[in-house]
């Protein structure tokens, strides 16, 4: 007989660590509320017929957050055999609140009280036997981290399958009367063991209940008039009253407001004066290690060494993979096109994917440490004031900071943001920040058109930040984003010393998910670009071409160059350069070089400055720069966006939004620039004025946060 055990508990209760210990499965544990958004399953060690389902960490089964709705739908719809409820012993009172709700589901349950060692260290004491008899289900003391007590708890959970469910928490006599009237009306509507849950939820006016349920508004009104409180408060108060009665005589606390170690750390770390300097130092180290030093060494080694000419190892020259493959292919006398496909298409594509991995692992390692130790929650606390104004989370700071180095790890860093809306918004706007690959484009335009003016580079960053702020404000007011309520009532978990295995596991899982999910997109698009730049129609018919300007890509570029005419750069060379920029932004410079007849150009393209200066007006050049900074990022970053959005629809929406936003911004720059500099007025100017007016409207229209959660159809119950 197969048994299904649901692992339920608050965020930061050690649930994921327990899950890992029970199943041995690879999964990350963090210190950030809500890190487990996905449903995870594993087989209980030593019991091949016992499945453990790791539910999202939730504080309640209310209808207001996605995690909560996911958790309760599973508990109601798939009715696991047993609930293993993990409780943080240092925070019994609030943790038991979820327990009171789980007790109403009619499913056998047991409590695993975690972190008992810390409870004892604090000088508090807890009588688990009394707790067990008060709650009415077995209670075990465990240490998820040290693996203590886990086996016994698991064995007990297995043996509970098929036994009686605990009695629901007893509320006051008056409330129980109301609930029993509702229960009578529920006869025949829901399974009898779920009467209690549905009765309470109906009483609370829960808007996520579906199906043909009786109307109980008369009972609710009666209760609310009598108590002068609303139904939701009545139930919440009942639950906490029940908990207080359970804890009386069970727990002895030394001092309620005594400063713990964690509090003492926080006195310094989130101190009014020191918090920002400390934050700046921490961010400096994250950036320094993952972008400037270790990250760059790793990336350079991967790109120029392993996937380049080669590298030197202890004085020995190790040739790069492309060199080895080229030698092998030449030795086998393979055809030129095949050699080119393998080397410039496939190997270069794989290299493009794997080249990011070492840097990403460094970043993920640092993020895992920040999450696991508890500092990530403090970042949100410190930065919330700034970021929430444009619909982002305080934690959006890290993706954007990393994004100045490279957008790919920047987008991947958004994983640490637990709120769905904030995360999506961060993913969509992170690549607006100029990454290091966009610097050559800035240098090219600054040198060729603006005589190397000092203000061009800072203005590019300013444009990036402005794009984030404007997009944030516009997007948060759209229907797609304003739909979700995002209360920022966040637990500041106690600091923990992160464990090596959890941190490494997190690093590896995220790195691997990048290779798996983002890799395919990067590889396929690299091959596509290789094909379209190396094949084309010439006088001899379709075939391989030597010159990029004969290739399919140039044909495509010529095909829609007119689209960019209102932006001031309607020539096909600019269009082709912008397309090759999708492979990697620095390619824009090289492509210009080739199209203007140079085999190779310097990084800032100084050879072609004159030709560009002749082809571009100042507004057109700046418009070209802005378009390339803001439009859809390189394929690698697109892959990262796809990975993090976890939805094709949202990926296309993000890329579409970025490109349209870039187009309209560039349009305004060129049109208004031409108007003010040359006095030219035309159809384009009118369009730009309309765009500006529309933008101002979108920025200024009122914003109202929704009060109910709009769940995707996949989450709604049958």
């Amino acid at each position, binding site marked *: 007989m197969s048994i299904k055990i649901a692992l339920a508990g608050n965020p930061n209760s050690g649930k994921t660590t327990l899950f890992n210990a029970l199943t041995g499965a690879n999964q990350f544990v963090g210190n950030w509320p809500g890190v487990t958004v996905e449903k995870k399953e594993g087989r209980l060690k030593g019991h091949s017929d016992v499945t453990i389902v790791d539910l999202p960490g939730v*504080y*309640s089964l*209310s209808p*207001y*957050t996605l995690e909560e709705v996911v958790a309760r739908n599973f508990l109601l719809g798939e009715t696991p055999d047993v609930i293993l409820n993990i409780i943080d012993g*240092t*925070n*019994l*009172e*609030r943790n038991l*609140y979820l327990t009171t709700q789980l007790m109403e589901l009619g499913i056998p349950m047991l409590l695993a009280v975690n972190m008992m060692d810390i409870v004892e260290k604090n000088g508090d004491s807890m009588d688990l036997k009394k707790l067990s008899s008060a709650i009415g289900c077995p209670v075990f003391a465990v240490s998820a981290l040290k693996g203590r007590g886990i086996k016994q708890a698991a064995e007990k959970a297995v043996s509970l399958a098929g036994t009686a469910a605990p009695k629901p928490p007893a509320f006051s006599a008056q409330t129980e009367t109301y609930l029993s009237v509702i229960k009578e009306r529920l006869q025949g509507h829901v399974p009898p063991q779920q009467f209690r849950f549905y009765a309470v939820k109906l009483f609370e006016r829960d808007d996520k209940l579906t199906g043909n349920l009786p109307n109980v508004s008369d009972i609710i009104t009666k209760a609310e008039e009598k108590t002068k*409180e609303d139904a*939701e*408060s009545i139930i*919440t*108060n009942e639950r*906490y009253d029940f908990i207080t009665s359970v804890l009386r005589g069970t727990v002895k*606390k030394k001092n*309620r*407001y005594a400063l713990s170690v*964690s*509090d003492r750390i*926080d006195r310094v770390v*989130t*101190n*009014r*004066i020191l*918090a*920002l300097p400390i934050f700046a130092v921490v961010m400096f180290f994250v950036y320094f290690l993952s972008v400037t030093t270790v990250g760059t060494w790793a990336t350079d080694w991967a790109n120029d060494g392993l996937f380049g000419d080669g590298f030197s190892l202890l004085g020995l020259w190790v040739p790069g993979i492309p060199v080895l493959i080229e030698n092998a292919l030449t030795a086998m006398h393979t055809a030129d096109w095949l050699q080119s496909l393998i080397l410039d298409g496939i190997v270069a594509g794989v290299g493009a994917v794997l080249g990011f991995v070492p840097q990403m692992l460094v970043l993920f390692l640092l993020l895992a440490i920040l999450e696991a130790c508890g500092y990530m*929650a403090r970042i*949100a*606390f*410190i*930065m*919330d*004031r*700034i970021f*929430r104004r444009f619909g982002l989370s305080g934690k959006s700071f890290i993706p954007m900071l990393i994004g100045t180095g490279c957008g790919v790890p920047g987008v991947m860093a958004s994983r640490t943001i637990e709120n769905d809306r904030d995360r999506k918004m961060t993913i969509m706007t992170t690549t607006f920040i100029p990454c290091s690959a966009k610097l050559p484009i800035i240098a090219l335009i600054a040198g060729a058109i603006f005589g190397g003016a000092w203000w061009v580079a800072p203005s590019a960053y300013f444009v990036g930040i402005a794009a984030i702020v404007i997009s944030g404000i516009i997007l948060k007011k759209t229907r797609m984003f304003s739909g979700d*309520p995002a*209360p*920022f*009532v*966040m*637990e*500041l*978990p*106690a600091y923990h010393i992160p464990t090596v295995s959890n941190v490494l596991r997190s690093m590896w899982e995220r790195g691997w998910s990048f290779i798996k999910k983002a890799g395919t997109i990067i590889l396929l698009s690299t091959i596509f670009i290789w094909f379209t730049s190396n094949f084309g129609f010439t006088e001899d018919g379709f075939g391989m071409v030597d010159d990029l300007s004969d290739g399919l890509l140039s044909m495509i570029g010529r095909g829609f160059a007119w689209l960019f005419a209102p932006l001031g750069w309607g020539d096909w060379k600019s269009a082709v350069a912008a397309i090759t920029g999708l492979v990697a932004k620095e390619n824009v410079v090289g492509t210009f070089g080739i199209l203007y007849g140079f085999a190779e150009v310097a990084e800032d393209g100084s050879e072609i400055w004159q030709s560009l200066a002749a082809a571009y007006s100042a507004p057109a050049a700046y418009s070209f720069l802005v378009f390339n900074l803001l439009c859809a990022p390189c394929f690698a970053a697109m892959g990262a966006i796809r990975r993090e959005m976890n939805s094709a629809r949202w990926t296309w929406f993000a890329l579409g939004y970025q490109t349209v936003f870039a187009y309209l911004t560039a349009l305004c720059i060129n049109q208004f620039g031409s108007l003010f500099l040359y006095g030219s007025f035309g159809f384009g100017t009118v369009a730009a004025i309309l765009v500006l007016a529309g933008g101002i409207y979108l920025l200024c229209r009122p914003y109202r946060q929704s*009060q*109910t*959660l709009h769940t995707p159809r996949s989450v709604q119950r049958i």
Partner: protein
Amino acid sequence: MKTLKDIQCGQTARVVKLEGAGAVRRRIMDMGITRGTQVMVRKVAPLGDPIEISVRGYSLSIRKNDAALIEVE
């Protein structure tokens, strides 16, 4: 009417009533801020918002706007 927003750092107050509606209100209650609960304001974030409070033995971060929904005495 005094709300949690008006409480100084280091001061303790008792919750009387919760205003507001929907998700924010429910979240505040779910996190243990209910009628009669003792709440201590621990600190204000460096930029002036949110605040950190101590409730039922743990630390919670809450925005001043939301704290204004919590009537205290």
